[in-house]
């Protein structure tokens, strides 16, 4: 849209500026708080200029939160979710776009509907599954009377058990199942001209060969966009890691950060908490900055 209206220009710029300020003020306040000592951070009115204690606070937060190992956990989870999501989304979209099979529309809508069921809504059943991923199969065996049959014949009581709690699969798998990536990929695949698919067929490339040789290289920007979104999404997860990890060695940065928040009559060391928050912000920030160019290209899709 190209419009030349000075008032509209001023208005849009004002709006942009206002949003930027609204987003940046809390970050600035966190930064200022992270540079104060306990007295400074709790004094009223609020301080707007940084103090001298940034490095001490950061070091203290790093030590207290055990961030060295928490960062490793969070990185494994975030990278795992990102990779899993890309593979799953690409394969699902591939099946939906390039193959005509009977249940195609049904599956597409089933995936679409999961958009309306984020993890927070289905967290209780998801937890039940994570507690024993094989429970549904056990239920089927029980209902079919097979458990009793096997016990009568062999004397072995079948009790299927696969606990995902406090494990990386438990942290990663439930976060992979979202529809956004599938949609992003579907939109991209729909822009691939039909003739390209047919040319590959004539050249003798099978479906997987076509996926690997043509679609994967062509979708690099889409992949970058999805990777950025998913990394930030997974890194910032709080509720699910809190539920599924009961052992401190398995908790993520976000969970650990919330544990640092002073409660009850503890010492209100907000300076340390804010220093920790600054640390926790760094990896997603780095990913966004590094991927920015690709990310925008993947979303606007000017290149084909």
């Amino acid at each position, binding site marked *: 849209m190209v419009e030349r209206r000075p008032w509209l220009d001023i208005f849009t710029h004002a709006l942009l500026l206002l949003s930027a300020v609204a987003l940046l003020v809390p970050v600035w306040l966190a930064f200022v708080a992270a540079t104060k000592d306990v007295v400074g951070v709790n004094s009223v009115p609020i301080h707007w200029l940084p103090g001298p204690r940034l490095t001490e606070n950061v070091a203290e937060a790093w030590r207290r939160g055990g961030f060295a190992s928490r960062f490793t956990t969070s990185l494994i989870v975030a990278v795992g979710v990102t990779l899993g999501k890309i593979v799953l989304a690409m394969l699902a979209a591939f099946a939906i776009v390039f193959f005509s099979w009977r249940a195609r529309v049904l599956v597409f809508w089933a995936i679409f509907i999961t958009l309306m069921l984020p993890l927070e809504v289905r967290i209780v059943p998801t937890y039940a599954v994570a507690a024993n991923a094989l429970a549904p199969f056990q239920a089927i065996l029980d209902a079919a009377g097979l458990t009793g049959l096997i016990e009568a014949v062999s004397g072995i009581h079948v009790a299927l058990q696969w606990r995902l709690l406090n494990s990386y699969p438990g942290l990663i798998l439930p976060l992979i199942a979202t529809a956004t990536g599938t949609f992003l990929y579907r939109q991209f695949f729909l822009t691939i*001209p039909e*003739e*390209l698919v*047919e*040319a590959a*067929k*004539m*050249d*003798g*490339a099978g479906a997987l*060969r076509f996926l690997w*040789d*043509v679609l994967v*290289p*062509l979708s690099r920007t889409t992949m970058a966009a999805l990777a950025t979104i998913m990394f930030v999404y997974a890194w910032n997860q709080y509720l699910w890691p809190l539920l599924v990890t009961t052992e401190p060695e398995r908790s993520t940065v976000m969970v650990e950060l919330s544990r640092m928040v002073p409660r009850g009559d503890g010492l209100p060391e907000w300076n340390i908490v804010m220093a920790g928050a600054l640390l926790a912000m760094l990896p997603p920030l780095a990913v966004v900055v590094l991927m920015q160019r690709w990310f925008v290209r993947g979303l606007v899709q000017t290149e*084909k």
Partner: protein
Amino acid sequence: MAAIELTGVSKTYGTNMAVREVDLALPEGAFVVILGPSGCGKSTLLRMVAGLEAINAGELRIGGARMNEREPKDRGCAMVFQNYALYPHMSVAENIGYPLKVAGLSRAERKARVAEVAGALELAPLLDRRPGQLSGGQRQRVAIGRAMVRHPKVFLFDEPLSNLDAKLRVQMRLELRRLHERLGATSVLVTHDQQEAMTLADHLVVMNAGRIEQQGTPREVYARPASLFVAGFLGAPAMNLLPAEVLASGDTVRLIDGTLLRLPEPVERRGAVMLGIRPEHVAAGGLAAKVEMVEDLGASALVHARLAGLAPLAFHSPAEAPPLRGAEVGLDLPPSRLHLFDPAGGARLPLGVGQIRQRARAEGGLSVTSASL
């Protein structure tokens, strides 16, 4: 032996029949052009041969073997698409070599074959470029190279020249023909461009509404159109078609204004017919007509006139001295140049068969005689 044989081949989409029971035998090593208006089923037919569309009924044989159930890659066909369909992320060399890579050839072998094809198509200096950096004509050559590299028995071209500008199209047309002569494989090209069809084809197939209207050499089809559709479709400007009536004697037709024309031989048919004559065959004579419009085609002028009975008639005149608009001219419709068609079914009515055959043979190539005034 026929390279490609179709027997009763049909294709239906729901209730819509795109291709209706086509029987076609394409001679080995020939350049076959399938011509027809858009939506006539010609591309569908080609895609069925390629294996990109399933065949609903009938049988397809290539080189004598039934192909209906075979995968596209096992049919020995290579295809060149209208939009080239090059892989945008691969270099020219990778594009051409891709079928070989899929087939599992070693890197060295691939390189040799790609170099050979690139040499033949003058693509050698472009091998490291991406398709996005090439012009339309160069992309088309890469697409042809990708088809050639597999040494297929059959080349299929789906409107390969329609995305090129006029000058390049003529140039690529010659190049296609030259390539065909050198490779000796059977080529099947689908187009809606009749000039392309006339110049390229050894064997011309005209399709309409999913059926084959006529096939033969371009000269045969042009000289003796088998139906009203072919008469109207092939030839630019199109053949003049005038409603007329065969009188009881059988050797005279009456135009709607009452003019009587003598036929070279008596016909069996009586009553209403469609009389056809090509613009280049209209001569000067005693038939009164009024000039309505003159189009300067450069080499000649195309004059649109109206006969006394208001029937429109187009004819060629020398470009230097065309008649003026509104002028009265005298025309003649030579009997030996007339075509008669059944106005209801569109079928050609036999007329002076022996005579016209002789003339066609005597004329030999594509010599167009323009009527002078």
